[in-house]
């Protein structure tokens, strides 16, 4: 408990090495896309970070349900970890998406279903963190948190669907209908960079998740010791 487990340490190092390789592949190895130019390189990390955000989103929803079933605070800790990671990575994904959109569509922001849904997830998670802050009793905090992630996890897909319907009924001027990345004709080397980035960020996700859960456990330990001293 006190020192970091070796497995986690090695995973930390592995994540860094993988990230370095993925950066190399995305920025140097992959050929420049013909239509969009250099800015298209953002795409590899954009999709990968969004993927991690999505992983965290699903993990939070699932652990929320498990918590409500088991009432074991361990799951609350995992849920909070998932939310925090998802919050950060969706944010990176949104920023990278904007950087990409600027030269391609001549605007920082488009109300694309994916981008909009991701920002609504961000708002839901900020609300989630504020909700937790306003509650002192740890059990109640965990229960409310779990209920809210569950409500969020179910509403976001419906939100995505409704924004999509919004767009198909009113075609938009900028961007292309029915998504964007399908339009990119990926060559073999691009695919390598793309899938490697996905793999790398999945490993980073596991690494951060593990670290964050460990941090939570240590926090609990500190709290326990404090209570013992007070008695």
């Amino acid at each position, binding site marked *: 408990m006190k020192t970091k487990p070796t497995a986690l340490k090695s995973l930390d190092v592995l994540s860094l090495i993988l990230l370095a390789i993925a950066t190399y592949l995305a920025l140097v190895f992959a050929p420049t896309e013909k239509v969009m130019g250099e800015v298209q390189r953002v795409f590899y990390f954009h999709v990968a970070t969004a993927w991690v955000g999505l992983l965290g989103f699903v993990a939070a929803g699932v652990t929320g349900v498990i918590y409500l079933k088991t009432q074991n*605070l361990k799951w609350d800790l995992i849920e909070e970890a998932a939310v925090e990671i998802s919050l950060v990575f969706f944010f990176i994904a949104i920023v990278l998406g904007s950087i990409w959109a600027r030269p391609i569509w001549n605007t920082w922001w488009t109300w694309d279903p994916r981008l909009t849904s991701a920002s609504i997830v961000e708002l839901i998670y900020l609300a989630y963190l504020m909700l937790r802050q306003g509650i002192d*009793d*740890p*059990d109640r905090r965990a229960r409310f948190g779990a209920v809210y992630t569950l409500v969020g996890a179910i509403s976001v897909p419906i939100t995505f669907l409704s924004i999509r319907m919004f767009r198909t009924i009113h075609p938009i001027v900028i961007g292309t209908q029915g998504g964007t990345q399908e339009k990119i004709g990926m060559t073999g080397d691009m695919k390598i960079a793309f899938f490697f980035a996905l793999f790398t960020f999945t490993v980073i996700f596991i690494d951060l998740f593990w670290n964050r859960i460990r941090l939570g456990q240590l926090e*609990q330990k500190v*709290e*326990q010791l404090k*209570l013992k001293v007070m008695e």
Partner: protein
Amino acid sequence: MIRVKKLVKRFGLKTVLRGMDFSVENGEFVALIGPNGAGKSTFLRILASLTRPSMGSVSVAGFSLPKEAADVRRKLGVVSHQPLLYVDLTAAENLKFYGRMYNLPDVDTRIIEVLEMVGLTKRRDDLVRTYSRGMQQRLAIGRAVLHDPSVMLFDEPYTGLDQDASAMLDDVLRTVAARGRTVVMTSHDLARTEDLATRFDVLSRGKIAASATHKDFGSGNLLNFYKNVLEEGKKQ
């Protein structure tokens, strides 16, 4: 009527009740006394099925908690320091509402009976907003006995009442709420508690530290008894 074995209640990492054993026989009036933060309110909330126990077994009126909570609730009346009344409804409407919540047959006759018992018949159609604190508390007792429960819980019923109102409440508690029922009560008002209860349990550090009846310490000495128990607790 009430059996509690090895009850543990935790809030997160903080343990409030630590393996508490407690039992009340039919018709007993037990007062729980103890310092702030000893877990009195938490314990009453567990008996009232409002809070779940973390560990241990609790049974009230022959039903175990939290599994058979609905059966327990039907047998249970609670008077707390908050009246649990709606100020924009009249006394009769408040009782009618709770009568429906308990699915009582023939609510109207029962309401007339109960209002008579707590002495509010004349003001049955006045808004609770216009009631004094003492009258609200009397109506709260009426609300608690509406479904004729066999177990009553009083949680600091004197909070916010002056001497006169407290004396009047004493009367109603004794004649209406406690008669023929099993009662568990918490209060800081030791003098009143001594008059009302038949047994006194001191709750300290999440456990029953001592239990005594009038016989054990003689009249007027509850305060001494209580102090002694707490002193001994500190030595350990």
